[in-house]
């Protein structure tokens, strides 16, 4: 009886959670049915699934509207900014966690305090600076800006992870003749794979999805990332709903797949950012 009552009590919980789940994925229904509908059908059948599924919109999007190029740009910018962030953040976190030097605590707190500084507050002078050094419309320029916004989180997380690596392991490595850099390469980095996975998942999703920085630093059409390309298509071709929704579909899809593959790391990343407080 007790278990009957307990499971009856759970019915309303399931109902509430199912309704919320439906609200969460409902927009995807619209995106999917519109993406695979022809434009003619859209105007006579807006809300139901397409009678004739077609790839017309998708093909037009990639061939005539530069979405293929935009996808390539997004991949390059995301990849480049993560690689640069890793190269800069790893040695910095190593120094903050395993070396003694003056002003260490101060510099580390200053770096971590920048976590969450709003883009809009600093972006205009950065834009002016980048235009002076000719780094607008370049992969490197925009990647450096993303790197800067990623750095505080990377350094914070890596420092706290490296700190937890026991000194004895490093001492043993030193006895085997490793110098400081080899210790980092051969011991610390391999031990830290999970935290690297977390950082990469979180920042891939952030950089791929970001609009403001991308649209300010990549102005030429053939430099647009997917989010910029999508927002431009909406502005220019508002009468082409199937193109717009196909764009939304292919901006969202890679991140949904990445999230499903790296769910554990993603959730860990979200929480470790919050635990800073």
């Amino acid at each position, binding site marked *: 009886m007790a278990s009957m009552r307990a499971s009856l009590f*759970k019915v309303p919980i*399931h109902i509430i*959670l199912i309704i*919320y*789940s439906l609200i*969460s*994925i409902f927009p*995807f229904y*619209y995106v999917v049915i519109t993406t695979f509908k022809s434009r003619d059908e859209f105007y006579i059948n*807006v809300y139901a699934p397409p009678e004739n599924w077609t790839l017309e919109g998708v093909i037009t999007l990639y061939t005539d509207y530069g979405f293929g190029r935009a996808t390539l740009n997004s991949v390059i910018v995301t990849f480049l900014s993560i690689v640069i962030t890793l190269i*800069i*953040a790893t040695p*910095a976190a190593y*120094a903050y966690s395993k*070396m*003694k*030097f*003056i002003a*260490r605590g101060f*510099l580390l707190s200053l*770096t971590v305090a*920048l976590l969450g500084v*709003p*883009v*809009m*507050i*600093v972006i*205009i*002078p*950065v834009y*002016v*600076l980048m235009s002076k050094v000719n780094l607008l419309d370049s992969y490197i320029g925009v990647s*450096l800006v993303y790197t*800067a*916004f990623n*750095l*505080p989180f990377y350094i914070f997380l890596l420092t706290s992870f490296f700190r937890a690596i026991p000194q004895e392991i490093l001492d043993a490595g030193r006895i085997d003749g490793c110098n400081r850099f080899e210790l980092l390469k051969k011991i610390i980095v391999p031990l830290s794979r999970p935290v690297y996975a977390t950082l990469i998942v979180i920042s891939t999703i952030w950089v791929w*999805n*970001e*609009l*403001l920085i991308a649209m300010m630093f990549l102005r030429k059409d053939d430099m647009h990332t*997917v*989010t910029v390309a*999508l*927002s431009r298509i909406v502005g220019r071709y508002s009468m082409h*709903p199937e193109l*717009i929704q196909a*764009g*939304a*579909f292919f901006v*969202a899809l890679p*991140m*949904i797949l*990445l999230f499903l593959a790296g*769910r554990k790391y993603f*959730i860990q990343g*979200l*929480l470790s950012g*919050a635990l800073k*407080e």
Partner: protein
Amino acid sequence: MDFIRRLKNQRDYKPYLYILPSILLLIFVFFYPLIQNLYRSFFRFAGGKAIFFGLNNYKYLLLTDTIARRAFLNNLTLLLIVPIFLILAILFAVLITEKIRFRGLYQTIIIIPYIISIVAAGVVFSRLLRFDGIINFILDNIGLDVLIHNWLGDPKLAIFSVMSVIVWKELPFGIILFIAGISNINPEIYEAAKIDGANWWQNLFYITIPQLKSVINFYIVYNVMVIFAWIFTYVYVLTEGGPVNATTILELRIFNLAFKEHNMGMASALAMLLFLMIFVFVYLQFRLRQETLEES
């Protein structure tokens, strides 16, 4: 003096080489821009010349610029989101952590809005919320046609439509946060309460919520920051601040001052005001928390 002596004794300069690239980049992207903003905020830039303008940019923004005032009020209105987030996030976190089936599945589905781009979400919702959009279509079909509105076009409603999209997309972060918070609560507390005969609601209000106090504090502060400085993309994609500035916000005003009105001095001044607001807010809540820590 002690510092200088220690600096002289610091023989090993290698650690500084390890941190140098990160410090340089952070200087160029954060510290230099803040100083530049402050400097520019005292100037007016016209025809390639900088004219010293004193505090006039600030004066204009605070006293005359009705759009900036409208933006500030809209940011304040959007703060309504903070209690909404708090209540819904705790509610769903509590429900998901009940020992139910399909927990993992619910959790996965619920997070999806959070990981897709605001641009994609905005593009979809601006279609769904149109007058001839699917939301009005559904309302019409289930007999709620009195609720049919021009969700993004009606100046009174638009800000609340923007708010709903933000809730739809950002709520999962809070849920994840509180799920983690709840699983950190010592289960012995619930067992003791069970012996005392506490019911579900008593557990919620006398154990779960008090135990989550620090997570709740963090989540409130986090959301205030989000509302003041991290929602540009929503407004830019959904409404561009319209209709007639009904959904304009401080970030959008900074952006438009700089790139539409080409008034860099004024844009810098508003960026400084926003920075100051956030700085004071963070500082105050930090002090407040220090005090409550000392008392307890």
